[in-house]
Every structure is written in structure tokens, then in C-alpha cells.
């Protein structure tokens, strides 16, 4: 197993190096303190990836559970629409104006539920004043057809 290189005699420097004995005893303080406090160990990659994956899974599961079990307490179910309006969509003027065919616009306009007109009288109008005066003074008799029965 030897060759000419191994048969070379050691020089003084090699002998000086060979005097030293490698230290084979680990310092106790190094083993106890360095590993606990001084050495900043980070977790391996697989542990960090597993932590991120578990966090994302838990977050997604929570969101899905919330979506499936969400019941708004402050909002009741809307009342059913009146007959005839149940299946008719409500279109605005803008959507109707976009239509090219007049028949479609007419159809949609007819299908749109009409807003009820307020029946309160306009008190400041001259028509209201005239009506009130008539009612207070003497209401004209309404002709009837009672004479037929008399």
C-alpha cells in the first residue's frame, strides 16, 4: 500500500506538526450552552413548508365553514312578490334604451312593475283650493236616476 512518496523521511516541520495531539474532548460548556442559546438554529425547510400548508388549510376550512353555515340574523327572508311579478325581471331605463327593437323595449316596459303613485293631494295647488271651496260651500247635487224608481 506504500509507494515512493510514503517512504520519504519526515522533515523537521512535519515532526513538529506531528507532536500536536488533536483534541478529542469536547468542552462541556460548549455542548450545553452553545446549542441552547448561542446557536440560532432554524427549523428545516420541510417543517416550515408543513407549517405554511397547515395554516393555509385551516384558513381555507374556516372560510368554507363560514360560507356554508352563514345565517344572517338581522335580515329576514324577503316577502314573496305579488302574483304576476314573480318571474319578471326588473329592467331600468338604461337597459331598455339599449335595445334596438321597439317591440322589445315595449315588452320590457310593460313587464316592469309600476311604482304606485302617491295619492296625497298637493295642498298648495290652486286645484286643491278650488276643490275645498266647492266642498265647503255647496256641493252640487249629483243627479241620480231615482226618478225611475219613484
Amino acid at each position, binding site marked *: *500500500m*506504500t*509507494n515512493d*512518496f*510514503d517512504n520519504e523521511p519526515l522533515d*523537521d*516541520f*512535519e*515532526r*513538529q*506538526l*506531528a*507532536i*500536536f*495531539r*488533536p*483534541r*478529542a474532548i*469536547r468542552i462541556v460548556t*460548549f455542548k450545553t450552552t*452553545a*446549542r441552547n442559546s*448561542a*446557536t*440560532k*438554529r*432554524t427549523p428545516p425547510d420541510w417543517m416550515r413548508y408543513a407549517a405554511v400548508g397547515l395554516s393555509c388549510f385551516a384558513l381555507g376550512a374556516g372560510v368554507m365553514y363560514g360560507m356554508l353555515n352563514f345565517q344572517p340574523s338581522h335580515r329576514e327572508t324577503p316577502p314573496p312578490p305579488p302574483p304576476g311579478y314573480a318571474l319578471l325581471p326588473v329592467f331600468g331605463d338604461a337597459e331598455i334604451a339599449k335595445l334596438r327593437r321597439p317591440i322589445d323595449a315595449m315588452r320590457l316596459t310593460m313587464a316592469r312593475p309600476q311604482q304606485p303613485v302617491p295619492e296625497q293631494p298637493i295642498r298648495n295647488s290652486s286645484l286643491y283650493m278650488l276643490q275645498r271651496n266647492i266642498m265647503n260651500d255647496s256641493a252640487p247635487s249629483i243627479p241620480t236616476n231615482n226618478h225611475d224608481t219613484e
Partner: protein
Amino acid sequence: MLPIPPPDDSELHRLLEECMPGLILYARQWFASAAEDIVQDALLRLLREPPPESPRAWLFRVVRNAAVDRRRRENRFRQEPVPNWFHGVVEQTENEPPFDGEDLTRALESLETSLREIVVSKIWGGLTFREIAELTGRPTSSVHYDYRQALDRLRVFLQDENP
């Protein structure tokens, strides 16, 4: 075919005494903080497996592979520096060196790993150049050339440290 008997206690004890310090110093190049653990694992593996032809070279190969692999896996961990890889010089010889263990540690740390492992395995590990060549996967002449280059650099470094 009879199973190969494991090394007996006396042979194992002698092997440990001869190789243990060099193996730890060899493993310390890649993973200083766990060199003893790596060497201990290699010794346990030597007891479990059939004895190789050259236990010394086999141990160095196992320690090298384990240390390099562990260094690659745990490279981001900050390693505690070991200020002195050697005991103090206890033998008073005619070739008493003018430098101490810390100087030699710094000198070895100044070398590249490829050069340092050759010096360590040759001087403190007791391997032959052929075994080091098989260990590192390089030609024997190249290993010998790098060994001489590393010794020159160590000599210059230590002379500069201790003029």
C-alpha cells in the same frame, strides 16, 4: 462460508487510540460542532458491519462522507468556532515547535478544505498517499504535490505569526 468475526477488543482499542484523534480532527474540517458524533457513528458502524480490509482508511472514508453530507444538510446552521483543535505540547523534544495549538489551528483554517484534509489525514491520521488518493478520488502524485504545497503554506503562515 464462515462470517467474518468482528475485531476483538484489543484490536478495537488499539484502533481507537490511534485513529480517534485524527478522525475527529478530520471530521472537524467540515462540521466542527459535531465531529465527535460523526466519528462515534462511524465507529458503531464499524462494529455492526463486516470488518474492512483497512479499517483505518475505511473509517476515514465513512467519516468524510458523513461529515460532508451533514455539512450539506445543515449548512445554514451557524457553527461554533473551536479556537484550538489540539492539546498543548506536553512532550519536550528536540523539535519543540515555536507555535502553539491555536496558531496551528489558525494556520490549518487558512488552507482550503482540499489541502487541509490531505495534511490532516497524512500527519494526524497516518494514512498513506495511496489511501488519501483513494479517499479523495485523486491521483497519488497530485495528492503528494498538494501535500507539499500545503506544508509550505503552513510553514509560511506560522513563521509570519511567530517571527
